[in-house]
């Protein structure tokens, strides 16, 4: 039976790449974003919604249950960042980042787990960042929101283990996506220079860690955060 995979933030970047990756390996993929993507893929269904809206997240998961009767994998990729000196961060930015990265991730974890527990099997993968262990200046709010995601990952790993669900996180290095487009090149170079493996990350690097967490043999791996590039 094909695995059913939910990926948030699939309109572009890592989310889109992961959607294509899982479709290629024969999965049934559902994805979501606030705006419609400009691409389509056989085996992929898009839900246009805001993951910070509880009612909309619930409706999406109900639709997945009705259509496929199960959910095996949930990947909380949707995230936003804002790079600026803390003294220049307005509270609206703080609220927006926490809402998407923390509230959104939690709501998707919760509703996904409710479906997964029915078959006593599930894989949840959250997204952290190397900005957490590296304590990057200018990323106080973004890194703090991802610290919350890491703690969420570790606590949910305990709470959901009884239902056969593992919860892990991947912490990417900078990757060529819109998320880092506004970050100056020299700042990116500084981050790369402090990694053990000094290069930008790739979509394939992220997919490799996700694949590891998802594979059935990883049923004894939970509550873990894996950083790319030897960061942190």
């Amino acid at each position, binding site marked *: 039976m094909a695995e059913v995979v939910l990926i948030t933030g699939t309109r572009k970047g890592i989310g889109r790449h992961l959607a294509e990756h899982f479709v290629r390996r024969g999965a049934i993929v559902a994805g979501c974003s606030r705006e419609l993507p400009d691409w389509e893929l056989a085996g992929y269904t898009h839900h246009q919604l805001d993951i910070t809206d509880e*009612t909309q997240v*619930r*409706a999406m998961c*109900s639709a997945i249950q009705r259509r496929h009767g199960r959910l095996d994998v949930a990947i909380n990729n949707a995230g936003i960042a804002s790079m600026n000196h803390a003294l220049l961060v307005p509270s609206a930015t703080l609220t927006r980042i926490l809402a998407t990265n923390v509230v959104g991730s939690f709501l998707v974890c919760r509703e996904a787990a*409710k479906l997964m*527990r029915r078959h006593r099997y599930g894989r949840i993968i959250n997204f952290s960042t190397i900005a957490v262990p590296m304590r990057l200046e200018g990323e106080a709010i973004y890194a703090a929101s991802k610290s919350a995601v890491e703690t969420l990952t570790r606590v949910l790993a305990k709470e959901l283990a*009884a239902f056969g669900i593992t919860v892990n996180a991947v912490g990417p290095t900078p990757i060529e996506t819109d998320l880092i487009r506004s970050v100056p090149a020299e700042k990116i170079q500084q981050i790369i220079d402090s990694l053990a493996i000094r290069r930008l990350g790739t979509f394939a690097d992220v997919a490799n860690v996700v694949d590891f967490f998802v594979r059935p043999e990883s049923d004894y791996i939970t509550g873990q955060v894996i950083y790319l590039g030897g960061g942190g």
Partner: protein
Amino acid sequence: MSTQIPTQATLLQLVIDGLRDVLAMSERPVPEVIDTTTSLIGKQAVLDSLALVTLIVDLEQRIEEEYDIALTLADDRAMSQKHSPFRTVGALTAYIEELLGEERGNG
């Protein structure tokens, strides 16, 4: 899917069926009689805390599938009530009936 408001007897049966399923999945003994007085929390409870969580989520999903209403049984209001709506099968049934009535009223 039904659009009728379920009767109290129907809801009671829904809760009892849900409880029987959860008990069957857990390794706890199933009492001979399950009725409105069966305790869900406290010393007399037939469930442990994880099984109670499972029952609540099961009931939310069954109600959504049967009646197309997305209820949240364990919200702040339920948790702050002096007499928990999760104390017995009867209390839980009455609480679901109350929430369904509010949903229908709003809808």
